[in-house]
């Protein structure tokens, strides 16, 4: 009796696998491939998962030249560069090139020039890199960083920034710019497909790596950047992440959001 169970149990399982396997790995791909002009061997390899693509459809062709909006890619190598950055060298470079506008502390006095103090290291690295590569253009910054190499950019970013976003980025900023603006910051606007600002620009949001700290930044600078994103004049945000957001905001909202985040 025991033996009967062993035999039939095993046969049952093997039969289930055999039927499923035969159909799924052989019959279906061969039949589908034939209709799509894919040879049987390729179709079977695709059905097993050894080759990419579908056994029932050829992969569409494309001819397109890469036109990246930034040359920065967040790879392990880039992270390593930032973790190993030399802050002392960054300080030295800052003393040479940055001090006259941004000061050594990063607390710039001019409200059209962004504060760097406590800014995300990743944000600083990306913007410096983009100025150098021409992905972002500014008549002051572009010539200043043209001859820096990747390591120097990393050092500068590490000097001014903090590896974790600084204490000046609480989830909601100081000044109260009205309930509607608060609402955009916390809840976005689903009717416009507008995500909340704090979905990215907050501690523990888990948003894109290069997200900058906004809190405590000059309102004038923030407003100028949002307007630049909205018009497309600034376009180094990967896959329109900021352009799509800024374009949905009215000018009044942009002005008030800038004030909200600046805390002024």
């Amino acid at each position: 009796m025991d033996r009967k169970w062993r035999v039939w149990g095993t046969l049952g399982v093997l039969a289930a696998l055999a039927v499923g396997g035969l159909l799924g790995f052989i019959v279906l791909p061969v039949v589908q491939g034939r209709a799509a002009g894919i040879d049987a061997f390729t179709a079977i390899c695709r059905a097993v998962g050894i080759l990419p693509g579908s056994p029932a459809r050829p992969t569409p062709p494309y001819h397109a030249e890469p036109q990246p909006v930034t040359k920065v890619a967040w790879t392990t190598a880039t992270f390593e560069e930032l973790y190993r950055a030399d802050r002392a060298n960054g300080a030295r470079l800052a003393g040479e090139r940055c001090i006259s506008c941004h000061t050594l502390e990063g607390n710039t006095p001019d409200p059209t020039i962004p504060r760097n103090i406590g800014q995300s290291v990743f944000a600083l690295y990306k913007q410096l890199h983009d100025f150098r590569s021409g992905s972002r253009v500014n008549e002051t910054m572009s010539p200043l960083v043209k001859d820096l190499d990747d390591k120097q950019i990393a050092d500068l970013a590490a000097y001014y920034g903090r590896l974790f976003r600084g204490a000046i980025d609480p989830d909601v900023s100081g000044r109260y710019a009205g309930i509607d603006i608060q609402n955009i910051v916390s809840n976005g606007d689903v009717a416009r497909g507008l995500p909340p600002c704090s979905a990215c620009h907050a501690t523990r949001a888990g948003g894109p790596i290069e997200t900058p700290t906004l809190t405590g930044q000059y309102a004038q600078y923030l407003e100028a950047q949002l307007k630049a994103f909205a018009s497309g004049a600034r376009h180094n945000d990967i896959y329109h992440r900021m352009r799509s957001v800024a374009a949905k905001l009215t000018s009044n909202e942009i002005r008030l959001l800038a004030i909200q985040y600046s805390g002024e």
Partner: protein
Amino acid sequence: MAATEHEVVRSELRWAAAVSVFVVIIFGLTLFAALALHRNPPSNLERIDPKTLHLTGEFTEPNLGTRVEQNGQVTTRIVATQFAFIPPCVVVPADREVTLRLASPDMIHGILVSGTNVNTMVVPGYVSQVHTVFRTTGNLLMPCHEFCGLGHSQMLARVHVVPAQDFRPDAEGRVSCEAQ
């Protein structure tokens, strides 16, 4: 009532046979769709590095959206990222096979197109590919249906299905919502 254990087991087996037939019929529908209609779940297994997606040719920003390739195939390329689709609006022709290709540079996203059988996950590391024919014209919703972060609730795109005569590709074969 069954008088003996033997009769009990037989009644159970009769029932098991009946329900197995029922289950086989349901399974058979899947088999039929696969053999006769060549329908498969979206299984593209085409790998692509999410970290350098924005540096590639196929998924570079100007190449996104709907394009009619030289062989007449209509391909719509969309990138899903935190927290928007790009392009947020695409145009597709009705009654013609369309291939949607999606990729993500960051999180797991997913899409469905309301009222159609278009439904796929967009997993970073892979190009998702769905083939369909849009039967009814109109404005369809394409939300992100997988949790991708705090902005997930606002992540929505639109699909304009236009009749064939209104589907007019430009010199490069591209059709966009702005041009319509």
